């Protein structure tokens, strides 16, 4: 019951994001979307996924979107909205195929689903002896899937470095008086313009 309501809220929010022209509002609504998704994961007992969704979706990605908005503009460019049948059909067909794919899967929460019968019992029984921590999820993530976790962390680190370079580098160049797009020292240009306005001769060598 709760999850159906939360799903309805999710769809409402998604439609709202589609309709809005105000990009700041869209960023805020996507943060709201993430909080809703986190609540939904919480209802489905996936607390770790929920927390990741809330931290990344509602926290970091909202900040990143705002950083992008600070560089670009706030309003979306107005253009005609019309329903094009080709893409709409393609999307609907993809959605139908995905739903068809879920029909084979075991129902949510089934005890004899392959996920619960394959490796999970072994983890539950042996991991306190083999690894140690009382939290089994921790020992799975940090020990049994250690390389996987290491790879994920590397990917996340690389992504963070890339984003910081994109967002932070521009500002540093601007502070130093350099326009990154032109490669011209803006302060020098301003100085030349000012001198010209005062009617002084330009120093030799300057363009």
């Amino acid at each position, binding site marked *: 019951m709760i999850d159906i309501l939360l799903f309805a809220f999710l769809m409402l929010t998604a439609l709202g994001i589609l309709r809005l022209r105000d990009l700041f509002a869209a960023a805020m*609504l996507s943060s*709201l979307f993430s*909080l809703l998704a986190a609540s939904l994961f919480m209802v489905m007992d996936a607390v770790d996924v929920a927390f990741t969704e809330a931290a990344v979706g*509602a926290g970091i990605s*909202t*900040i990143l979107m*705002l950083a992008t908005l600070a560089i670009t503009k706030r309003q979306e460019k107005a253009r005609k909205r019309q329903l094009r049948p080709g893409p709409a059909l393609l999307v609907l067909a993809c959605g139908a195929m995905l739903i068809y794919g879920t029909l084979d899967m075991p129902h949510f929460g089934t005890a004899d689903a392959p996920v619960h019968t394959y490796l999970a019992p072994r983890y539950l029984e042996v991991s306190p002896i083999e690894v140690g921590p009382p939290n089994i999820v921790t020992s799975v993530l940090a020990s049994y899937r250690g390389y996987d976790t290491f790879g994920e962390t590397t990917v996340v680190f690389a992504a963070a470095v890339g984003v910081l370079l994109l967002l932070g580098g521009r*500002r540093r160049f601007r502070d130093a008086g350099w326009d990154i797009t032109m490669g011209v020292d803006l302060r020098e240009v301003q100085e030349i313009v000012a001198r010209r306005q005062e009617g002084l001769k330009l120093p030799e060598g300057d363009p």
Partner: protein
Amino acid sequence: MFAVAMIAILICMALLISKAFTADSVFDRILVINSFGTKTVLLIAVLGFLSGRPDFLDLALLYALMNFIGTIGVLRFTRYGDLSSMDQDTTQKPDGVEWL
């Protein structure tokens, strides 16, 4: 008891979503997100008692903390357009939401 609380929280969520669509100022929307985060915290707390396993109450605390930090971050951005201007550097964007 907890069911009633849950229904109240869900109604609050619906109201907040409708407000998020119709809000007409930047700060209204930020406030909507902040109080929606609070509703998430409440939902987690009530959900634990509703399902008889209140083990995740500390997680609700963590959500509250994150919500607070997130709101501060968003507000910094609306003020400075940047996260790293920790000092009183208001020379670039002095009038707050002008860049928006």
